[in-house]
């Protein structure tokens, strides 16, 4: 069975948040309750005038060994054959265990419904032969999506400051190459 994954190139990210807007538009995520399945995180380092800013667009990375799934007390989280990890909101009780165990902050508690929701990798779009909403609009190609066996093993598995993903095996890789000069 084919599975999918993300490829992210932080040096190309212009922090425009188109990925987040597209995600909300397609998945009709509720606005105003701070549920942001995909969001752009920004980290500054260094001191003036030698500063560096890294931006990462982060959502669920659909880990092969998903901790959120492991810790869910009501087994509301499941993994499809194609590797997409989903939350069954009918079963979810909103206990928040998955939020604690996910190093990427993917599961989010919707305070209006008291349920956890998260990125679905737009499985409904994938089934129609389209790409997930975020990767469809990303204007610079910083965020790419594709078949995991084409992405797997390339680039780096983490950026500085991120969790070591050896156990979870998330489906995301990062490009750490600098620009050609």
């Amino acid at each position, binding site marked *: 069975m084919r599975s999918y994954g993300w490829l992210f190139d932080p040096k190309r990210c212009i922090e425009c*948040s188109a990925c987040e807007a597209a995600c909300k*538009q*397609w998945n009709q995520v509720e*606005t105003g309750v701070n549920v942001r399945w995909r969001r752009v995180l920004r980290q500054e380092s260094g001191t*003036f005038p030698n500063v560096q*800013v890294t931006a990462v667009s982060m959502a669920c990375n659909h880990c092969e060994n998903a901790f959120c799934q492991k810790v869910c007390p009501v087994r509301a989280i499941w993994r499809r054959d194609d590797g997409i990890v989903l939350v069954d909101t009918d079963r979810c009780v909103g206990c928040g265990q998955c939020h604690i165990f996910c190093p990427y902050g993917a599961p989010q508690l919707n305070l209006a419904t008291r349920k956890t929701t998260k990125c679905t990798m737009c499985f409904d779009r994938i089934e129609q032969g*389209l790409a997930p909403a975020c990767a469809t609009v990303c204007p610079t190609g910083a965020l790419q999506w594709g078949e995991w066996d084409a992405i797997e093993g390339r680039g780096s598995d983490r950026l500085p400051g991120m969790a070591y993903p050896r156990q979870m095996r998330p489906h995301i890789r990062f490009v750490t190459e600098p620009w050609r*000069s």
Partner: protein
Amino acid sequence: MITRRSVLQGAGGAAVLGTLPWNEAFAEFFERSQAIPYPPESLVTACGICDSACGMRVTVKDGTIRFIQGLPEDPHNEGRLCAKGTSSAYIRNDPDRLKYPMKRTNPRKGLEEDPRWVRISWNEALDLIAEKYTEIRSKYGQEALLAISRGRPPWFARLYSALGMERVDHNDLCYGVDIVISNQTIGRHTFAWDLENAKYIVLFGWDMVARAKLSLSNRLLHAKENGARVINFNPMYTATAKFADEWHPVRPGGDLAVALAMIHVLLKENLYDRDFVSQYTNFPEYETQIREHFEKYTPEWAEKESDIPADVIRRIARQFGSTRPAVAPLHKKTLAANYENAAPLCHAIAILNILAGNIDRPGGHYFPRTFEIPGLDAIYRPPAYPKLPAKRVDGREKLPLAGGYGMFSTLADGMLNRYPGRVKFLFWNNYNLSSLPQRRMMEEALKTVEFMVLVDILPMDAMYFADVVLPSTMFLEGSDIIVREMAAKSPFAVVRQPVVGAPFEAKSAAYIAIELGKRLAPDYFRKADGSWISPSELLDEQVRRSGLGQNFADFRKKGFVAGEKPFIPATKFATASGKCQIYIPAFAAKNYDPLPNWRPKRDLPSADYPYYLITYLPAAHKRNSTQNNPVLFEIDGTPYVHIHPSTAARHGIRDGARVRVRSRAGEAVGVARLTETIRPDAVAVPHGLGHRSPWLSVAGGKGFCDNDLIPAQTIDELVQHGNWLGSGCIMDAVVAIEPAV
């Protein structure tokens, strides 16, 4: 989409995959694939949020917009979109949208008054406007009329001209100065920069990446892919600086000194493009004056004004002079900050580009190759328009060199102090009060207007001063032919079509203008045979004459048309002398500097206001028009005040605390964000927040407005300061900060 097969093809087969340098094995991924899948039934249209007007594919399901993505064939945005375009359906479906024409029943105006709207029919509204116009015009004459509006769509431009209304728009706060300078130096103002072929790029505050203006920001990205060297001068580290090889935190207003010193070095060391400069510019005629003029602007002098070390300026100038093609792009308000010294700065940067020999050359500043779409006036010739009053409310006639644009920055003073009570009839179209400097002054001025018409899509602040409100449509509901010039190396036209119907009783701008025209100036809205002109016929005629198709329906079926025009570099320029002008004789004739001179910005730090104010534009917003979009507001809706930690420590301000920012114009309270990305002597605030209208359910009453801190101007000030091109100084302020309790 990345597939196994494409990776192998790109790398030339599996066997060599391991032996390739890592970069090339990856290059495959980042070939900005044009093959983004889209649903075949989606409709082509063009975005209308900013001037980039990127091509879109909109998926409509059951009459509502399901998803919006880029148009893969569009060279402009390369099949992608920014957050604003992607989420524009939220603007279309905004529950706050104006639904019906309304009239005010409470005669008292102001943001604290409830206008007590009453719904009326379109005919009633239009008749009422016509009646009031006729009454005011006959009682007070033509001087009492004013339109605050852009000249687009051309229907409105015709309406104002036909009614003899003076029109004011925001160009002085934007790129008005650059229009004048461009016309004088290279003959035409364009936004087209061929960055992807440039090898050396110097950005004076040019910040399109941080604003996500794709047609331009992607050009910089391609420049990086092609190995260009990018230098960025900006007091604040923005997303653009991330793409720069060097970021130099220049002192606000000091970029002019850097540009002058760079010209000094180029001339001293003869590092300019000799062929171009001797053949196509007026440099040979004025060589002695030019060389003499820039003699005094040494890098050592510039260091004192800009905090950039002299040897750095010298090195950058030498690299700029010896690398080809080199370019120093400019853009609108963020071109290099709209300060009082914007005119010499635009001029200096134009000279840099001329010396680099990049005008209309690959890798430089070129004239866009677009389809010629005949305008409204070319197709339906109007009779002669009435003359406008000689004395304008904004006083622009005192600046003979300024272009044909109105001035927002002096308008409030004109309405309140110079000509109190003169404006009786005001037509306000799609502007936000918060885009005017010192908007509270403008609010006072609007209270003095007898009758105000407002055309808008959302209940913005200006509605509180309107007597009649007309709901208009947005770009997803209208038709147009879009040709853009920001990245137009070859002609490309996209259709704009209504993907969904207009909600409730909203009507298009064309309808409003023509219906008012029929009532008030019928001669200007008739065809030669006496029948009324119609927008759809105009579109058909435009499509026919520009060769895009048989009629608009045909063009709409195509969706877009790509033309072919070989890129032949210009040898004639549309200036007075037919050459690029470094020395501007027209300015000399009017006793204005024919060559750029150093002058500081208007407001400089003092004991009372020790910090420079910088405004920046959040990437997720288009100025102040998209805050009510809940998606964008969630992405960027916090009124951050960016302060350097050392500065904050001096005032006892902690990260996330409330902070009050005061200037001589007013004050605002925001949330402190301590960051190392800003100069210690500057404070940065976002532009666009601070709508006060409680009818805006998302953005109303949230945040602060940066324009409360920007002092407005009077026309006499401009004349006195020698601001001859009428720069609006929309960023020119100094502030004090203190913790807000």
